[in-house]
């Protein structure tokens, strides 16, 4: 299999460049991550993040043949050769395929990703019916890999002002959580020309989410709530 991988070492390189690799696939190579881990035998300077190898930690998010995804759950034999690996678009590159996720996490923290409930704590737990719990499906599963936000044009143009699909999906996760009491504040916080309303429903986010979540739909639902609220 032929691969072409984005390389950049800040201590040595002036500019990034693409490096070609060739490797014999073995029967045990199922996912892209298996292959690039074995590539490190050929070239141990190749740098990328990885951890769980099963699509739940989000560490190995990268741009694969133009489309963001997780290396550990991308079936390697389905990829067109040469397989082009690049870091997530628009995020500052620290080294090779490792990017700086600071801005991404800043936006995530800005939506207050925690339950806000000032009532005194109940003896056991805050109860929630199965129907209320069902509303969190498709929202809580986000692993914050960054595939969506780094493929979103609105995030490209205004990363510091637009919250981005991941942040907004999590905002909705707390807005419709029946145990959360800060719904009004959350909606008000997003009601400005940039934080939510830069979203044009381009839907790149939903296209690339490796967990099959739909941030564009969550954003739509937040907008509808805001409209209902204002009438």
């Amino acid at each position, binding site marked *: 299999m032929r691969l072409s991988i984005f390389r950049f070492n800040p201590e040595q390189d002036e500019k990034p460049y693409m490096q070609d690799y060739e490797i014999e696939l073995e029967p045990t190579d199922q996912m892209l991550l298996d292959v690039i881990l074995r590539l490190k035998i050929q070239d141990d300077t190749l740098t990328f993040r990885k951890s769980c190898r099963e699509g739940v930690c989000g560490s190995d998010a990268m741009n694969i043949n133009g489309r963001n995804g997780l290396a550990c759950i991308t079936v390697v034999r389905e990829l067109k050769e040469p397989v082009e690996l690049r870091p*997530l678009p628009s995020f500052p*590159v620290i080294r090779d395929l490792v990017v700086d996720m600071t801005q991404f996490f800043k936006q995530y923290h800005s939506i207050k990703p925690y339950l806000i409930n000032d009532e005194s704590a109940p003896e056991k737990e805050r109860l929630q019916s199965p129907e209320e719990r069902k509303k969190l499906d498709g929202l809580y599963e986000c692993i914050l890999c960054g595939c969506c936000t780094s*493929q979103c044009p609105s995030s490209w143009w205004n990363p510091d002002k637009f919250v981005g699909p991941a942040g907004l999906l999590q905002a909705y996760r707390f807005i419709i959580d029946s145990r959360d009491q800060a719904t009004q504040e959350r909606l008000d916080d997003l009601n400005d020309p940039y934080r939510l309303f830069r979203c*044009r429903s*381009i839907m790149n986010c939903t296209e690339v989410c490796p967990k099959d979540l*739909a941030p564009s739909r969550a954003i739509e639902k937040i907008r509808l709530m805001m409209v209902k609220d204002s009438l």
Partner: protein
Amino acid sequence: MCIGDMAKSKKRRPVFFNLAQIQMPVGALTSITHRVTGILLALGIPFSVYLLDLSLQGPQGYAQVIAWFDKFAFRVAAIVLVWALAHHLLAGIRHLLGDIDIGSELPAARRSAWIVNLGGVAVALLAAGVLL
């Protein structure tokens, strides 16, 4: 970013941002064309208002507007604007439906994106058939 990182590599953190190498799904094409056609239509507003004005001023003005429509270049421009309006309108309807949660799931959204892209061109071809 911690201070250590900043001191070492504050100068060089490149980004990967080559649009030619980033995949553009069909919905993204619909979206950027929606924006481009919007700008084209907005630029066309002053001239359209002028045509309206001229056509209502008197029989000579009206005749003048009709005469312009005989020119080939004018007709080509008209077809481009018809395409722009058709695409913008269809993409707009797709957005309005999405707003009320119709066709928001990925498979439906991809299908509607194709319909919008091809529909706009179809209307333009129709206009070309009529005008040329």
